């Protein structure tokens, strides 16, 4: 239980996808111009991360890891398929995103209208694949922790993009040196927010 709670808090604040690893920066910078769309993309990322991470975890534990295929037959104890990880993870993410898009379009047109345009973007969001690769590296003990890690990372990402969008909305009224306008100042802001988030790094649960 404690494991789950500490993974959750760590993944939101300390190992924040954006401020600690810069994952998903492209869509973070492109879509953080107003709070409403940022929120939409944030929710989509939380959903996809929380759903694909357990899938990829199962794939890792029952197919890819060395000796993972023992449940098929004991002869496979030495088979190590982890080099196939990249292809399988990205295939899971891309097909899941496609699936979600179709389901949402069929059953909830209003949600599709607000979320729809962001869904295809998410397949190539580094934060999703990054989550899967970190999961492989950290070797979580069970499915629950992996799911919570996905959920927490997604929430951390959403927190970052919504905060950024709120600041950028206010920024329109400030006087910025011309060459820094747009991309330049966005970088500096992200850095300052990152330094702010570093103050969480002492927290231990």
């Amino acid at each position, binding site marked *: 239980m404690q494991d789950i709670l500490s993974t959750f808090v760590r993944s939101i604040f300390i190992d924040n996808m954006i401020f600690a690893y810069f994952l998903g920066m*492209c869509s973070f910078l492109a879509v953080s111009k107003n709070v409403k769309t940022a929120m939409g993309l944030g929710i989509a990322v939380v959903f996809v991360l929380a759903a694909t991470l357990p899938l990829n975890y199962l794939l890792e534990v029952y197919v890819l890891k060395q000796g993972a295929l023992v449940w098929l037959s004991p002869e496979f104890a030495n088979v190590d398929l982890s080099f196939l990880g990249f292809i399988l993870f990205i295939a899971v993410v891309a*097909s899941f995103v496609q699936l979600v898009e179709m389901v949402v379009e069929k059953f909830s047109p209003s949600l599709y209208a607000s979320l729809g345009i962001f869904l295809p973007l998410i397949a190539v969001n580094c934060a999703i694949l990054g989550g899967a690769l970190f999961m492989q590296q950290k070797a979580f003990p069970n499915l629950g922790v992996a799911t919570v890690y996905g959920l927490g990372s997604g929430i951390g990402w959403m927190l970052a993009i919504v905060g950024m969008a709120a600041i950028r909305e206010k920024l329109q009224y400030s006087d910025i040196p011309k060459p820094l306008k747009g991309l330049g100042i966005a970088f500096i802001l992200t850095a300052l927010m990152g330094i702010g988030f570093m103050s969480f790094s002492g927290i231990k649960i």
Partner: protein
Amino acid sequence: MGLSENNKKILLGPLGKNNPISVQMLGICSALAVTSKLEPAIVMAVSVTVVTAFSNLVISLLRNTIPSRIRIIVQLVVVAALVTIVNEVLKAFAYDVSKQLSVFIGLIITNCIVMGRLEAFALGNKPGPSFLDGIGNGLGYGLILIVVGFFRELLGSGTLLGFQVIPQSFYDMGYANNGLMILPPMALIVVACIIWFQRSKDKDLQEK
């Protein structure tokens, strides 16, 4: 090797006016996390150049046979296969660096530069120019990475590629390494400075 005027533009454009990071805003994700030292930055730059060039070539060769509905998945599979090859090569020949880069080699798959160039260039052009476009964009990306890595390692640890550059006499006089440069947020500030510099030289690039 005689390059035509057009090919030269495709190859060299991304180094300056059309730089993938500072102008097109692509591939920022992985650009920053690997630049706290110069060596991983160089390895990353070379890996991305190789992957971009060859995925451009492959997709350009296949461009007339891929149905456009499933093209994203086809592109991802091609890129993922190339990245797997790069990853295995690095593990075999440069194990230390590949440990340092950890997940970021895998993340080349979702690097927006690769996907962006495939969508914007390789799907509509012949294999030759596509290959050059891939090399050009890889180099433009690498250029920024290496500049950022250079400053962060020099100011943050006083070394370059692991060799001590700042002489001991400086430290004796009270010079200290700036520990802040090694932390992740400083990568963003250095890139912002590069953008600032580039845009004050080149007024066309400024945003309204």
